């Protein structure tokens, strides 16, 4: 069994805005591209052009339909569609680490990133079984466990311009729905965003203390609630076209 650090110097992670994510999968493929070419074994694809294509991805977007419960104000609310990107949450109490029989899975002291040391990984799959989020994938070609590295080979990479030292999913997200930073620092931009938008843990009841946070969707379909306030705006200036034209004359005088 492998030990977690008592604490980490920083808690680097992602903040994902579910109000803004349009479900475009840009993050999924950018991640696939970077991590196929970089850290560790490539992310392989089996049956790539066949009946059951199945490849390794470190980040996937799931879409869920949500049916809000009826209320007095909204007796028949419309269903909603929520896009939900999911990758390793770099938990403080990461069960995938403690379950690892070889020490291949570990959480970094300096930034809290959970990584797999592929040369020590025996592909037993215990960590994937222990992770309540389904965030780890065993690469079928290489036989080692793959997971989000938070682009550890980008975020400190001196060969990249400073502005690009963020995970590839964050750099590429067209809607700006993904944010990266130190969630251990209450003054960081990401921490402030979490505070302001009431960011949430995913499945806190699992006791994993995830570092990544999700910003919940804002309330939707409220426009009709405003009608009483807005109705005066629509007060007719005239009931007949003729009345409209005399209003027009009067108004034009004032221009």
């Amino acid at each position: 069994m492998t030990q977690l650090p008592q604490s980490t110097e920083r808690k680097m992670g992602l903040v994902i805005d579910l109000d803004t994510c349009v479900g475009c999968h840009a993050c999924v493929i950018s991640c696939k591209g970077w991590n196929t070419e970089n850290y560790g074994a490539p992310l392989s694809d089996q049956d790539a052009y066949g009946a059951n294509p199945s490849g390794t991805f470190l980040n996937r977007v799931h879409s869920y339909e949500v049916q809000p419960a009826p209320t007095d104000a909204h007796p028949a609310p419309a269903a909603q569609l929520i896009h939900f990107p999911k990758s390793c949450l770099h938990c403080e109490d990461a069960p995938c680490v403690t379950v690892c029989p070889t020490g291949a899975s570990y959480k970094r002291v300096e930034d809290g990133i959970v990584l797999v040391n592929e040369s020590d990984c025996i592909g037993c799959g215990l960590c994937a079984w222990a992770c309540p989020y389904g965030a780890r994938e065993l690469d079928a070609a290489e036989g080692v466990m793959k997971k989000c590295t938070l682009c550890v080979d980008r975020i400190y990479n001196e060969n990249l311009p400073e502005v690009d030292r963020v995970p590839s999913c964050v750099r590429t997200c067209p809607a700006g729905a993904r944010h990266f930073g130190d969630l251990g620092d209450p003054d960081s931009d990401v921490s402030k965003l979490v505070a302001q938008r009431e960011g949430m843990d995913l499945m806190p009841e699992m006791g994993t203390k995830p570092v990544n946070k999700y910003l919940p969707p804002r309330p939707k379909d409220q426009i009709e609630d405003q009608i009483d306030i807005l109705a005066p705006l629509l007060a007719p200036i005239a009931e007949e076209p003729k009345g409209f034209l005399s209003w027009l004359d009067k108004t034009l005088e004032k221009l």
Partner: protein
Amino acid sequence: MNQPKIDTSPKVSDEVRKTTCYMCACRCGINVHMKDGKVAYIEGNRDHPVNKGVLCAKGSAGIMQVNAPSRLRKPLRRVGPRGSGEFREIEWDEAISTAVGWLNELHETAPQKLAFFTGRDQSQSFTSFWAQNFGTPNYAAHGGFCSVNMAAGGIYTMGGAFWEFGQPDWDHTKLFMLFGVAEDHDSNPIKMGLGKIKARGARVIGVNPIRSGYNAVADDWVGITPGTDGLFILSLIHVLMKAGKIDLDYLSRYTNAPVLVNASDGPEKGLFLRDADGKPLVIDRVTGEPTAFDKPGVRPDLSATYEKGGVTHRPVFHLMADKYLNDEHAPDAVAERCGIPAKRIRAIAAEIARVAFDEAIELDQEWTDFRGETHSKMIGRPVSFHAMRGISAHANGFHTCRALHVLQILLGTVEVPGGFRFKPPYPKPVEAHPTPHGDRRPGRPLEGPHLGFPRGPADLLLDEIGNAQRIDKAFTWENPMSAHGLMHMVISNAAAGDPYKIDTLFMYMANMSWNSSMNTKGVMEMLTAKTEDGKYVIPNIIYSDAYSSEMVAYADLILPDTTYLERHDCISLLDRPICEADAAADAIRWPVIEPDRDVRGFQSVLVELANRMSLPGFTNEDGSPKWKDYADYIVNHQRKPGIGPLAGFRGENGDKEGRGEVNPDQLNRYIENGGFYVAHIPDGADYYKPWNTAYQDWAVGMGIYDSPQPYLFQLYSEPMRKFQLAAEGHGDRQPPENLRQRIKDTMDPLPIWYETDQQGNEGFTINALTQRPMAMYHSWGTQNAWLRQLHGRNPLYVPTKLMRKHDLQDGDWAKVSSPHGEITVPVMEMAALNDNTVWTWNAIGKRKGAWALQNDAPEATKGFLLNHLIHELLPPKGDGMRWANSDPVTGQAAWFDLKVKLEKAAPPSDAESQPEFNALESPVGTGPKDLAWKVGK
């Protein structure tokens, strides 16, 4: 802790090559990271005006496009019957000679017998130039089945439309409303814009029968009944006008609302009163006299009428009040048909009014208008709109697009801060666009471009006896304002010999035997139809594509194109540029890798074909060719003196922009600059562009106009009225009797809504739609190994109510039928969907043998096309005529008018979607089983 040491600063790549993406039509800038001469990784270019560093899933998966097993490898000559996919590989010499053998005689004797249509071509200013010099009237790209209503509706109304023509003012808008935008459309710019306005907490309203993608993140979703957007918009107009929530100052200054309309009976009725110089007249509030609209100091009166000869001539605005204040447009009158409660229509109108007028913004920026008046501020009405195919691809779509623009204009929110802004070369009035040209001139070029904007019946392309000059019957009485042609009618008309037979069909990037046609099975039959003597009805078909698409199998000669990283291209101001609202911009592609196959960029092949035929325009006076390939053309072609395909780095030293002499080093300068060029619009010139003298002067300097072109927005369309006048019996050029009433009805000069032709639809009551997902785009690329794992299946999405009604569960099968055909397909429930609408992802379904997929790939077994249910013609009316399933104004393919019937069905015996087609022979084999694509060490 004993923590492994890892290298956190590995070398990223040997070199970054910056070019332009081609995974969809956005044309984002990309950084292609190279290792050992191979593509290692693709990311967005932060400096690029379109995507500013971000990149969508398609763009990042470009690497799988470049290594795709479906890439064609060598020219092919058909050996089996058409549609079999049996080919032999040939050398380029033979390919070129074969094509020239078919084409040269047509060029010299009967150029109209070549129909040259390009699909999702990004080089239309070049391909049209080629076709123009060939002399055939039969050229267009795919706009006719994509979104011509959107483009033409915008240009006829306000001199520009959405997407390439303009964009919401993302930095200032406070309320954004989008209509009928599919997930794949204008991919990164819309997502970036939504992200920006959501970060500010601004409101987004999505009007779409399907609540996915952009509509899923909208704060309010309006799940409208397809085809009723115009009705809804006219109701918003009704409510806003009735409440006086319109911008009278804006309307009087910048639109034709105050222009006087001739009320005298006769051939001028309904046209504008004009002065001796032909300028439309308004009543000047200062003098009370009829005055040219643009006279310095004139204050156009929206209300005053003009008495002459006992006739009262009224301004356009009076006619609008008559029409739109009518209670037929009241929310209660339209709510049921639109599927939107009247209360919600009023609430949306009220919110629009509140934001437009109570939250108006002012920029402290002085500017001077075309009448010479200087304004100290720029007033913004921060409501913006965007729309696309969902409102466009209906037979009432042209009017709906016009209605949306009229709504924006009534609010005074076009070209103001927070509203909709044009992108250069727009704004550009109809008068600054060409008229269509279609004369047949053997051995000589057309006298002007094929496609244009008719001003009236005189511009129709009809021969002496009134027959269509073009094979697609564009610019005829059937669809007078068909500004993009009718690609969807080309094969159908050619097979029917209506209006005439052709000899050679030449297509590029257009998957006509599959997802890019209505009536797919019928099109396959047309492409393989034979005459009594056993020859094909369409004798020769030449096709160019980079990939083994379904259309390849139906051609006789294949000219294999390169992938987008292996070619030169220009994204030109002459064509569909990449401008932003505050800058003109263009870009190039260049070969960041060399092809590893015997393929050539299609545009260079066109140059070679032109040179072999010595086409005028491509040939110097001494008979020598002007250009050796497309790159040579890009640099050295001049459309007018000093104006070429690329606007940047012109002149001997590369220091001129817009206008300037040819710079032989231009492509290198673009490459050094990241593959693009940006010319910023000066401060103070960046809003009110159609009327702003500072913008007009800048645009002239850039070569966008030859002289300033200020104009009024055309709420009332005089060209439409001219067609209507003809139908009322005025003028020499008269419509055929069977179309007279339809022209009177549909060429209304003010936007209207009408129910589309429902004859034959009895019993078919459910709307059926398609869209593409954000991570895929039509089928101009291959079925990508990474992207197909995201979207490899396309069930029919069925709303909860219909699932219950038909006792359906996820995974069940349903027979879906239309008056034209039936399909049997798997279904899946979707709750966030209009109650009476079903839909599926378009073009996920593939034919067996295409795209190098295995025959048991889900795309080929479970995937399906809705296209089988849509005919390019309306059901016969018993009059012997072939009525196109198209908008009667523009010819836009009306594929979103589809109505179907749904029945639960037993699973097909082989559990495959129906209809099935036999497998094509693949000219490239199938892809590898497994992939682990790492090019570095």
